[in-house]
């Protein structure tokens, strides 16, 4: 048992850490939102309210796990499993540190994008099988939003791929030893950030589950641990997007030598998680058609121009 890429110990460590961090985010998010709204947030359970997560877990595990009689049983149970599975699978290709990772894949970027696309099935099946008008509306919105934002999420990454000459996430990090890609690919970074928010349907782009309009969207009918899986799946998606931004644009584990590489990765990823929570605290939700036209009419051309200019510069410098 050694700490190397793909060993059982590493896999267990990464799986435990990622799920643990996603669960802790329930507390982190509520606390940070509280501070940003001049409140305190949950601080009653344990030191600084840290055990709030434990209390939430106990609550969610002991709740009645009810499947509505009108729901389609098979896909109703399948949907929350899909989102957890695909997002946890995406973590397989993320390089956390030089010797920390699960798979060293040549198609890392493509794998992550493919898994993100499969995540759309989870919300679609969840909404469809619920047989509830709000859930159906939510899953309709989710399908449209995820499919359209996937397009330029991929295109915005092509600049990075072109610069590093590899689809391998580990080699993309290694190529950033001298300069983080956020500088030459700033436009790509911004587009990926926005698409990432839409992809993990976090606020301000939480239109599929917009509470004020369609109660809880696609997970209206879910309760107990099935709802918990959607909930944790959302936080896992947040961790994944933050890790991807760190890997693709902010030099992954690189940083001054006084801290081990994995710490630098964690610090950068947490900074982005905090930024996503700040987005939730500050920016109101756009309308559904605004979101779609913003994506197709503004972000898609912008990402194409970005790819074009990057390609031209690379060709010119050869």
């Amino acid at each position: 048992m050694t700490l190397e890429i793909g060993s059982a110990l590493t896999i267990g460590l990464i799986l435990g850490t990622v799920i643990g961090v996603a669960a802790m985010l329930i507390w982190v998010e509520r606390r940070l939102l509280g501070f940003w709204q001049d409140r305190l947030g949950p601080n009653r359970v344990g030191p600084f309210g840290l055990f709030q997560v434990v209390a939430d877990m106990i609550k969610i595990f002991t709740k009645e796990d009810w499947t509505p009689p009108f729901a389609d049983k098979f896909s109703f149970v399948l949907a929350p499993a899909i989102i957890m599975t695909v997002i946890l699978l995406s973590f397989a290709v993320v390089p956390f540190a030089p010797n920390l990772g699960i798979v060293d894949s040549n198609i890392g970027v493509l794998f992550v994008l493919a898994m993100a696309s499969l995540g759309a099935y989870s919300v679609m099946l969840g909404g469809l099988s619920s047989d509830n008008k709000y859930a159906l509306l939510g899953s309709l919105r989710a399908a449209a939003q995820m499919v359209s934002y996937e397009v330029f999420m991929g295109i915005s990454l092509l600049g990075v791929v072109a610069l590093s000459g590899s689809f391998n996430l580990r080699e993309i990090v290694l190529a950033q030893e001298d300069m983080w890609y956020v500088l030459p690919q700033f436009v790509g970074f911004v587009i990926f950030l926005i698409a990432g928010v839409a992809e993990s349907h976090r606020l301000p782009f939480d239109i599929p589950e917009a509470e004020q309009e369609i109660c809880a969207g696609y997970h209206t009918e879910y309760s107990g641990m099935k709802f918990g899986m959607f909930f944790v799946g959302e936080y896992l998606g947040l961790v994944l997007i933050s890790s991807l931004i760190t890997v693709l644009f902010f030099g992954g584990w690189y940083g001054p030598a006084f801290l081990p590489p994995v710490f630098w990765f964690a610090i950068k990823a947490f900074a982005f998680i905090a930024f996503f929570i700040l987005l939730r605290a500050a920016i109101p939700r756009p309308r559904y058609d605004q979101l779609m036209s913003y994506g197709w009419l503004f972000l898609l051309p912008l990402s194409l121009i970005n790819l074009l200019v990057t390609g031209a510069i690379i060709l010119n410098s050869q």
Partner: protein
Amino acid sequence: MLKLIQDTLISQVVTLWTVFRHLFVKTDTVEYPDEQPYMFPRWRGRIILSRDPDGEERCVACNLCAVACPVDCIALQKAEKDDGRWYPEFFRINFSRCIMCGFCEEACPTHAIQLTPDFEMAEYKRQDMVWEKQDLLIDGTGKYHDYNFYRVAGMSIKDKDKGEALNEAKPIDVRSLMP
């Protein structure tokens, strides 16, 4: 184009920065059971019946508070002492109905009924929220330390009517329009 960037991008960034700065602003939360909030002296909380500076109870059982009460939570019964002074035989406030509006305090001609800053009145049984006279009556004067209704209004005693003594003004005829 510049206007568009100003309206979309810059305004979002300014919003984010403004919200972020609130991380360093002191929170407004008062952690209540651990930390007592400052209660203003004229806060309308638990109702008391006060006594005048001589230690006599101020209430003259005029029923004005019970009439003013919008939720009818005050009940009292008039009784009379040997010298003709009125006092409440019982005085009952049902705090499960009381809305702490303070109308009773405004209506009271003798400053007997007063509201205090105390608000911690939760009970497990509804019946425990009905307070009788011995629960309501305090030993002090409440908010008005020197006020004694009969020193202001005068009092008729044997062989002397109101306003007939030395240094006493005639009582005002409230039914007359003349000055």
